[in-house]
């Protein structure tokens, strides 16, 4: 019995020992996921941040902003679109979109800059421009955001410090300056360069440089109400540096259908009738006999063009966006020459140079018609809307033509907040007393980030909105 016991004890001891040391090899192969990689290449990250940017600039943020900005109307075809029509946005309404900006684009843009700027300044420069686009849309909609600390994860203890919009806007200028420096370096400084992974420009850094300058102008001009003359000077200087002379270098969002479906098209396919072009916008086109009408607008149920009033969402039989922007692989503008010319017009006018303002305005309108329709504007249209002079040009005219030309771009909502043009009537059935001027700070920031600036009221304007 004793022998048995001893033998048994030894046996157990051996087995336990053998077990513990052998366990590691038994277990270790299955600790690491076979489903996802731990390391990736800059090409993969570049494609990722671009797609994230397309999701932000061609998704819910843009749709709801265009409702607030009066270009489209939410209808009763969907309860969610009706909520938007009633300005019923809460702190949870845009959590997804907030996440796409920071956890989709910002974190990986910063990864690219950190990991690859030494080997490839071009990758870094492009990532910086894309970062500016993302922080730009965030600050335009939410005001204060964490410019320096956003997307840095555990490095900032997962609680990024917010910075005022004023600071964010100035840091965006610096960021774009850095981008311009990187993009201006010689090709030899790059161990590798972007190609097809750069869907926007296929690695063409000259085009990225132009885009960076126009973006600088866009955000300099954001301060039109705060520093009218200084912002005008800067805007004009950046536009000068951009060297943009036509629409050939425009930045477009790229879609391929399928998993890469144009989101205006995908939305109408999945959520048919939820949004229709507004009556106001349709009237702007139809009343002007605008040659872009049949490009911007789809036909309504009666084969014509009509819009849904923003204060009566019951009619979903009106026009949706036309195939120009709403078909499976249609590209959608992001930063364009047309916008640059309108910025130039506005800045000149503010700088008390109505002549150059009128010239820029006319050029912008004509460039838009050419780009959208593929042909030059008809003479009567040019006479009526692109023949302004120093004596006739007004901010109202510039902003209305920009409103039309930048159809379906989120810029229109910022422009409306900044200038009050066009005049929009709030939906009387809304749950707010006016049109939202910003988005409430997302719930996750309120709950989990003690360093966040929390603003809950959508009627509180952002810093640059001082009109």
């Amino acid at each position, binding site marked *: 019995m004793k*022998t048995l016991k001893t*033998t048994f004890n030894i046996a*157990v001891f*051996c087995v336990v020992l053998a*077990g513990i040391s*052998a*366990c590691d090899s*038994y277990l270790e192969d*299955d*600790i690491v996921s*076979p*489903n*996802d990689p*731990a390391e*990736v290449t800059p090409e*993969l990250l*570049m*494609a990722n*941040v671009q*797609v*994230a940017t*397309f999701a932000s600039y061609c*998704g*819910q943020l843009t749709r709801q902003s265009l409702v607030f900005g009066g270009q489209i109307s939410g209808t009763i*075809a969907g*309860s969610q679109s009706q909520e938007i029509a009633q300005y019923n946005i*809460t*702190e949870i309404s845009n959590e997804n979109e*907030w*996440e*796409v900006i*920071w*956890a*989709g684009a910002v*974190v990986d843009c*910063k990864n690219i800059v950190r990991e690859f700027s030494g080997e490839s300044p071009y990758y870094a420069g492009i990532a910086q421009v894309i970062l500016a686009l993302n922080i730009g849309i965030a600050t335009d909609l939410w005001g204060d955001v964490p410019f320096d600390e*956003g*997307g840095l994860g*555990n490095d900032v203890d997962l609680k*990024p410090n917010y910075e005022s919009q004023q600071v964010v806007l100035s840091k965006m200028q610096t960021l774009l300056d850095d981008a311009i420096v990187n993009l201006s370096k010689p090709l030899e400084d790059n161990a590798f360069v972007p190609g*097809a*992974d750069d869907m926007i420009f296929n690695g063409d850094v000259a085009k990225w440089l132009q885009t960076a300058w126009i973006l600088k102008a866009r955000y300099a001009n954001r301060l039109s109400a705060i520093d009218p003359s200084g912002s005008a000077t800067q805007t004009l200087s950046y536009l000068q540096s951009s060297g943009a002379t036509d629409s050939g270098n425009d930045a477009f969002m790229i879609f*391929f259908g*399928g*998993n*890469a479906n144009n989101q205006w098209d*995908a*939305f109408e*396919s999945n959520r048919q*009738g939820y949004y229709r072009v507004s009556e106001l916008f349709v009237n702007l086109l139809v009343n002007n006999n605008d040659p872009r009408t049949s490009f911007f607008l789809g036909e309504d*149920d009666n084969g014509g063009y009509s819009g849904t009033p923003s204060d009566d969402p019951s009619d979903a*039989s009106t026009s949706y966006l036309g195939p120009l922007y709403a078909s*499976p692989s249609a590209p959608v503008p992001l930063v364009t020459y047309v916008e640059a010319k309108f910025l130039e017009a506005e800045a000149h006018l503010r700088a008390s140079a109505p002549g150059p303002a009128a010239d820029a305005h006319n050029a912008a309108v004509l460039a838009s018609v050419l780009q959208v329709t593929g042909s030059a504007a008809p003479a009567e249209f040019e006479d009526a809307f692109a023949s302004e002079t120093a004596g006739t040009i007004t901010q109202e005219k510039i902003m209305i033509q920009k409103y039309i030309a930048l159809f379906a771009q989120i810029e229109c909502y910022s422009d409306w907040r900044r200038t009050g043009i066009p005049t929009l009537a709030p939906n009387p059935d809304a*749950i707010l007393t006016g049109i939202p001027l910003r988005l409430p700070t997302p*719930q*996750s920031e309120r*709950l*989990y980030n*003690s360093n966040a600036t929390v603003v*809950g009221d959508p009627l509180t304007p952002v810093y640059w909105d001082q009109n």
Partner: protein
Amino acid sequence: MKFTLTLAMTLSLLFFSHLALGQTVTYTGTVSSAATNETLPGATVIIKGKTEGVATDLNGKFTLQAAAGEVIVVSFIGMKSKEVTLGSTTNLTVKLESGVLMDEVVVTALGISKEKRALGYAVSELDSDDLNRSGSQNVIQALASKAPGVQVIGSGGTPGASSKVLIRGPSTFTGENQPLIVVDGVPIDNSTTQSSPRDYPFNANLQGVNNSNRAIDINPEDIESVTILKGPAAAALYGARAGNGAIIYTTKRGKMARKGVGVKISSSIELSQVNKLPDFQDTYGPGINGNSIDLADPGPDERYDNAPYFNSADDVAYGTPNSWGPSNAETGAQTFDNTDSFYETGVAFVNNIELTGGQENSSFRLAIGDNRQSGVIPNTDFNRTSVRLTADLQATEKLKVGGTANYIKSSGTMAQNGSNLSGVSLSLFRMPNTFDVRNYRTSQGYNNTYFFAYDNPLYSVNENPFTSDVSRFLGNMYIDLDITENLKATYRIGVDTYADSRKQIFAVSSNNDDLGQVGQINENRLTGNQLYGDFILSYTKSLTEKLNLGVSLGHNFFINDFDDVFSRGRVMSIPNFYNLANTSDLYSSNYSETLKTFAFFGNIELDYDRWLYVTLTGRNEWSSSFELNNNNFFYPSASTSIVFTELWDNKPSWLTFGKVRYSFAAVGIAPEPYNTATYYVTPTYTDGFTNGLTFPYGPINGYGISDVLGNPDLKPERLIGNEFGLYVSFLDDLFSLDATYYNQTSKDVLLFVPVAQSSGYDSQYTNAAEMVNKGWEFQLGINPYRDGDFKWSVDINWSTNDNEVTKLAAGVEEVNLEAAFASIGSFAIVGEPIGVFYGTKWRRDSAGNIIIGANGRPLIDSQTGNIGSWIPDWLAGVRNTFSYKDLTLSFLLDFRKGGDVWNGTYARLNNVGRSADSEDRERTYIVEGVTESGEANTVEISAQDYYRFVVGDAGGAAEEFVETVDWVRLRDLSLAYRLKFGEGSKIGFIDITFTGVNLWLSTNYKGVDPETSLTGAGSNLNGFDYFNNPGIKSYKLGVSFTF
């Protein structure tokens, strides 16, 4: 290669454990009732202190190998167990007296049998009658309302739909909350898996079909008994899988020493019907503002750029989902009872053939069961064929071997459920009553519907079937070796392997494909392979005359491989030809997972003079879901039982038996694999309205850092339980009461701790939270008439579980558990029960009055919050069983008090003007509340505005739709008659049984049967009803013969 190691270790244990053999003899015997002298078939005979045993055959006879001097314990349900010391007489006659349930033996963790009186923790036991009376073909659903502390949540009445089981409430946030399911000592896969590709950005549980929980593959006819190990102490030997308890199914086996072959044939037919639907209005037709809107043109209304097969230039009317039109009396429109036209009577045929037999040293059971069931929703079904062979061989006096091979073929056709444009209830319930659901196809065969965005539900069930076809093999074998009189070794190994071949098609013109009416095929192949083995060495010894010791040591290993391959084709070239080659947009993704664990465990039992019992267990477990430096954990438990009636010299005669028990345990719940690192993923960017943008993006691939931060320091979650129990029985078990109080704290609960997304991440998987489940469980048995022709027994179970989240992560007071709907989610909030509904609320003043806007509608608060808990206040079951001679009537009343359900269906039916409430629309409404300046609201709003914006989901706060649900239901009723034949007859007996399920339901809930789950057993969401498929009631007639 991985398990050669384990095998080697097992073998080494075998070798080292010198084999010392003793002398055994074959004993035979007959067990009968002392009161009636009737023989007792199915009585158990075990050798005291060992895990093995035999059962008596139909004539009450048994044969057993044992050594003289050993003690056998003979027990039978409802009888006092009897101990017989074996001597020279090898032919025994054992007479059992009725009463004293506590001397029975029960199967516990790792297959160890124990006397009930020795248990220091609560278990519940069910036998095959209990399962049969449920009328369910799902061995999980069959447990409903039968044991205190056990909550079963079916997900609807569709055939094959999953049932979720929770014991003592949820103990984890993100992982598995359901107990371990064990069949014959081997854990089996009971997962419920939704089919979804990697680029699907949403919670796949919210839509799709009601998939099966894989335990549905087990044929209930094969089950002999069920033991439910409720607390952590009971299940402690299962270690990191014991946190939610364990349900142990023991299957039927052949009986040795019964010469010849016994045959049992049973057959039944069951009819099922919908048991409850929401109430609808039938006065008003389609339209808005009282004006009529034409229903959709026949055929699809879609943009046709991808779809050359549509030729519908006339398609302009989109139709409407709204029934706010003029009254049908006014328009003279013909109306239809569409729910009546749609639902069918489901029919099920269940046939079983069972052969059992044995020789002196061997036995077998071969059973074939076939179940064919069609549902109340047209073109839904679930079929299962199971072939199970079990054989046991007493190879030598010392060596017993046996095994089971079980092949199962399960297949089903399922209907779209929930938030789904092809959803059956969604489209059917919203359907204006001037549309006839039966006209579901256009002349070209396309979807004909009333509103362009929804499928006609008949089109959906006929043209968009989801099919699942499972082949599964369950096999196990064991070797029992009596090394010496006191030392015994058992080795057991089991496999569970299945392949589930699934196909979902969406016909051209159906709405639920991803791109819009262009047709889609999803081919999904799931395979699961589990391998489990354990080795147990057990030693028993009487240390003194009164003190007995039992020690077990062992190890086990577990390997689970899961593989999911998904292929999708979209944009079909030829309508109705369902091959991937017929599509122009192809996508494929796969997911694999391997989990390995390995453990050593030990169990020490002490029993002193049959009144004091102490059990200590320990288990050290290694798992591949942790990093190597942090991958093993120890799980202890201790329990004791004190039979105080043994100590009480002058105990009153009416007190038959009494014991108190206490247990403590710390067990675990392991994290899902692959959470220790932060990986790069192919992201999907979506705002929730479209399927978004994902990779490959056209021709280009991309990866981004995951939004979830991994955590190299992961530990298992700890469930620490304390449990007190009292069992008393009076007047020879005329009354018995089993009461349990437990307090279980889940510590280090893993959660995706939400982080501010501006950090670039949305969560980090961290051991941070704490949650407490505490509650009472009572089981009361009353046997007013036990002896004689007329018998009556009452079993009452009642339980309440109080759950509270006591801690989340630092700085986190609320966390979203699983994505649900935009307006309502499922949250953990400190100080509240787990999974509270979290959604929009009305804005209120300091006095709690709802604030009404100038337009007469209440305002929504800008912050969302807790608006209700799904956890019931209490659950109860009351079974009455009456028998007179061979006629038995049994019925189970099931009570639920409290617990909330979010009735998203009702919210939408109000919105679209289909609910019965919205019929009252020829008047205006004034919402009770105050204006922003504090005066009483006097603004009248139209009925349409009221039902849409206040009590409908076009603007109503989510809190408006959370209903507190009570019910009383006749869960089952069975009437059985046994026709007996004489000794000489070839036929043993014939049983004729009628079973009714859910024949009566009384509830305050405004929707379908509130025992419903949108998300099924594969999700930790509970209490969501958004156009869930309805529940059923059923009538079953069965007959069985034995030869």
